[in-house]
């Protein structure tokens, strides 16, 4: 369903609108990975099997108890998990100074006995390096990582949100100039990697892909009204209900 999309093929699970519920669930996914390895259901070196679980969230939702309980499990069981927090300085309108007393979300990792790393979230290559380390940590059995990428939300929270009521235009403009896309593009151009032709080609292809998706969505038929009654219970004869 919209906003709760998922892909079984890509192992992308359905997200909720209730913030942070996915953090302890991700600990459960990581627990299942470790469980299968420990009980011999899979070979720990089998790279065709999932080897870590990752979730992302905003800094606002790190105030929820789910965040604490999920990372506590990750720490206790040394789970192959990455918790990626995008600290964009606002929970809708509430500034980070009213959300937490610690300087960095990643500081909280110490409380769970897991690695905590703060990185400039607008620096694409720095984020990449930190994430590679976190992946290696998970693969090598060294446990979970709490990654905090410091960034900024350059748009209002939603189409209904008027962010002029809680932050200045100057602040927004300043962060727009430091945005990760602009910054990485400048970097690639200065290195001579991204030429004007290549950039035009990328932008054209990106636009075409989005246009195509929009056209596909608009052309799709609405579901039947009575489809509202569907998919309440998985059928019992489903293979999920039987032994392996």
């Amino acid at each position, binding site marked *: 369903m919209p906003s709760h999309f*998922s892909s079984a093929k890509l192992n992308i699970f359905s997200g909720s609108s209730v913030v942070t519920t996915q953090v302890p*669930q991700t*600990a459960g*996914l990581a627990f299942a990975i470790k469980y299968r390895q420990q009980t011999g259901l899979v070979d720990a070196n089998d790279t065709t099997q999932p080897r870590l679980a990752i979730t992302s969230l905003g800094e606002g939702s790190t105030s929820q108890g789910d965040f604490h*309980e999920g990372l506590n499990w990750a720490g206790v069981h040394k789970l192959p998990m990455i918790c990626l927090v995008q600290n964009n300085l606002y929970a809708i309108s509430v500034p980070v100074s009213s959300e937490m007393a610690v300087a960095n979300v990643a500081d909280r990792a110490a409380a769970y006995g897991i690695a905590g790393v703060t990185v400039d979230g607008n620096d694409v290559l720095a984020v990449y390096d930190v994430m590679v380390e976190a992946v290696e940590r998970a693969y090598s059995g060294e446990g979970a990582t709490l990654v905090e990428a410091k960034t900024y939300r350059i748009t209002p929270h939603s189409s209904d949100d008027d962010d002029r009521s809680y932050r200045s235009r100057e602040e927004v403009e300043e962060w727009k100039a430091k945005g990760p896309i602009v910054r990485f593009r400048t970097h690639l151009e200065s290195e001579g990697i991204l030429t004007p032709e290549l950039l035009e080609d990328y932008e054209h292809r990106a636009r075409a892909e989005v246009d195509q998706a929009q056209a596909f969505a608009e052309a799709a038929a609405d579901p039947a009204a009575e489809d509202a009654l569907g998919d309440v219970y998985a059928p019992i004869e489903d293979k999920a209900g039987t032994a392996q």
Partner: protein
Amino acid sequence: MTTTSNMTLIDALRMAMDEELARDPRVFITGEDVGARGGVFRATQGLFEKYGGSRVVDAPLAELSIVAVGIGAALADLRPICEIQFADFIHPAFNQIVNEAAKMYYRSNGVWRVPLTIRAPYGGGISGALYHSQSVEAFFTHVPGLKIVIPSTPCDAKGLLKSAVRDPNPVLFFEPKKGYRAIKGDVPSDEYTVPIGPARIAREGKDLSIYAYGMMAYYAEIAAEKVAREDGIDAEVIDLRTLLPLDKETILNSVKKTGKALIVYEDNRTMGYGAEVAALIADEAFEHLDGPVKRLAGPDVPAMPFSHNMQEYFMPNPDTIAAAIRELAGY
């Protein structure tokens, strides 16, 4: 088929978990004190020694995460059995159960299943006071996507728990803790399951129908025998067993035969489970009724008190059920 006679309800539950752990390597148990301690009621006693700490996993004292980790593991196609030590402590996990486990299959258009079993002892009568006596089933029976099971016999406890573990949906399995050792019965040692859904006609009768579950179903049978002996009243006892989805057919067939319905539950009366059964009967069996649909339930106070007198006053028992039967039979 060999049968163990006089087995307690809790021994039957342990047997079910033992068999499921042996049958399917994806099955694991987690919860507070389920490991070396074997659970505070000893429901998992011996399983840690037999299957090891990887499969019988002591959890941090945090119910939200016990359920949420179970959801994640179930999404990854394991078969978690999560124990909530007392149903009274399930509330921190309410959001994970109601917003996540119950809605996952629906919100993903049938892509992601949550084959999760949550066990929790519920109900009063053990001097557990306010926070070790609660009946919480009505909160969850309002939530489509969940299955709610409450056994009242050792045979059903084993068969229904095995069905819960194998079910591809989240199942809340509430166990009448007062009956853990008080209720005994024959339990087949061999492989069998009891399907989730159908109610059980615990006693056939023609004068009136009693609807109950858990400890109240056990008491209702005793009360029915008492009024049969003392008053010649022939009551039918329906042990609902599965509260969601509800076996409407068995409920309606019984009241259509007897014309009178008494619903017994130990939860607070108002907005309790009996209201739904009463509404169903009023809606679909109205012309068969020969008396008012009656409810015998706990009083509308915030929780069960500690004092023995007050506790006994709170809970329906075979005597108060027998009195309610006599009153309705005489209508």
